């Protein structure tokens, strides 16, 4: 018996060791960037490496905030995210409600079409959009980007929220219908408050999407002051990155922190939300 116990302890220690190594591998790039960003000088580029900065300073953070239009980028990203969120959720809620509650001709086709379109990578029609926008003078314009993002995220919102609406029992609505509530009143007074968790999660996912999108942002925004965070960071590393690499890592950390916080707050709902909306047809 004690031999078996000893074997168990060895096995468990080994398992713990493996997981500690895995966690270190998972966090290594992030720790390295954090330590470089805190080192304060570009001496980190010297040949000998260490994961801990010899002195801690916020110079790189100060530099990115004052020398580069980081705050401008932040404000651009925020404006784009909020506008996209309002449009895609506002439109999406209505359509999701219709698809969940009404049985109308063309409903299944519409849902299938949306699913197929969702599988279509937007990069593939990027040139077509670019050309159309060029003719309409929408290049370098926030409105243009918001329309693209909202259109893309609208499909996702419809599917994601429809899945949740389906789980709300219809009886609640029927009861208030008997009491004489109109369709609109039903939606705003009864269904939306009940669906609040789904709406919040979907909104946050839209927000994260816009925050993380770089390809359209860098292709359609051509001027340094209209860059989003993604565009700004992209440009920061693609121009002389060897010189600004510690500054870039500071910016990368700054950009990631809000996303990390949000992510860990809604993580629980994220998996179920993704799988519920993802495949079921």
């Amino acid at each position, binding site marked *: 018996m004690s031999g078996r116990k000893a074997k168990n302890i060895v096995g468990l220690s080994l398992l713990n060791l493996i997981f500690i190594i895995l*966690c270190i591998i998972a966090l290594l790039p992030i720790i390295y*960037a954090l330590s470089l960003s805190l080192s304060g000088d570009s001496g980190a580029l010297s040949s000998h490496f260490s994961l801990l900065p010899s002195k801690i300073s916020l110079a790189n953070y100060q530099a990115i905030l004052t020398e580069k239009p980081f705050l401008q980028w932040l404000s651009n990203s925020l404006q784009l995210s909020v506008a996209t969120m309002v449009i895609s959720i506002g439109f999406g809620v209505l359509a999701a409600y219709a698809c969940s509650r009404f049985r109308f001709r063309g409903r299944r086709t519409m849902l299938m079409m949306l699913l197929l379109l969702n599988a279509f990578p937007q990069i593939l029609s990027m*040139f077509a959009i670019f050309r159309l926008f060029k003719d309409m003078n929408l290049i370098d314009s926030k409105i243009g980007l918001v329309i693209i993002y909202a259109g893309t995220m609208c499909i996702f919102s419809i599917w994601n929220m429809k899945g949740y609406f389906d789980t709300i029992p219809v009886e609640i609505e029927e009861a208030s219908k008997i009491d004489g509530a109109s369709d609109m009143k039903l939606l705003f007074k009864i269904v939306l408050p009940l669906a609040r968790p789904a709406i919040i999660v979907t909104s946050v996912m839209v927000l994260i999407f816009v925050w993380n999108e770089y390809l359209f942002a860098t292709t359609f925004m051509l001027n340094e002051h209209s860059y989003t965070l993604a565009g700004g960071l992209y440009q920061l590393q693609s121009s002389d990155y*060897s010189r600004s690499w510690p500054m870039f890592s500071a910016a990368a950390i700054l950009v990631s922190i809000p996303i990390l916080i949000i992510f860990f707050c809604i993580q629980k709902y994220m*998996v179920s939300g993704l799988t519920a909306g993802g495949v079921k047809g």
Partner: protein
Amino acid sequence: MKNKKKLMPWLFSFPSLILIALIIIFPILYTGYISFTNMNLYHWFDFKMIGFDNYIRALLKLDSGFLMALVVTVLWTVLNMILQVIAAYFIALGLNHKGLKLSRVYKTLLMFPWAMPAYVSILLWRVGMFNTEFGLLNQILKTFGLSEINFLSTNVPAFISCMVLNLWMALPFMIMMIDGAMQSIDQSYYESAKLDGAGFFARNKYITIPAIKPIMAPAVIMTTFTTFKQFDIVYLLTRQKGALTGATFQTILTYSHENAFVSNNYGLSSAVSIIIFIIIILFSLYTNRSLKEENQ
């Protein structure tokens, strides 16, 4: 009254449908139109219809590079998915080991790569890990007295580097899915299997894998799609505008993007886009059907 009931859902869907038609469907149709023309930088306005020439060039001429890119993409998807599912399976198995007290801590730490914005992760890896001068990997090699490796300058090492990065970014989601599926398995199966003398291998083969299969199927299919469509890693690591590293392999998405925005072969790029779109539609129709059959 009856008419109003019929109109209602369309009224509700109208704003979304208009937006989607404008920004998703119309550009796809327009891409289809461009794919039949000879539009390029010199024919920006005076392009003309050339029929199926672009499709023929993409599909039948080996030197167009599309078929090679398609092979690379399939290889990329298959290799990534195999590695990812196997690695995630064993990690999740470890996390579910009863004696592992710190499993919640490990789980949270392992989630970080998933939570980071993708482009930030990729750029961090490009400069922080793979860079020849101050990338961490080469600094580690140097401290051990080994010679530096130029990770991104030739095709095979660059492809492997992209795969390592993709694993780093995608494993957390897979681990989380498999872990969730494993936790829903009734423990009594294992207890009776143990009494019957089933070993580690038999328990996995006859209990764990069959039990998590229905939950895993949608997750694996979803991830296969995202891996197939993966653009950011290959583009940002090796093919950024003005910062090519020397590796020349392409996936079909980087190929289409390059023809549209670098070499300005708009017609060819659009034809390639339409071909990819058709592949994706067929693939998703097929998987949707097989998923539904499995659920019944």
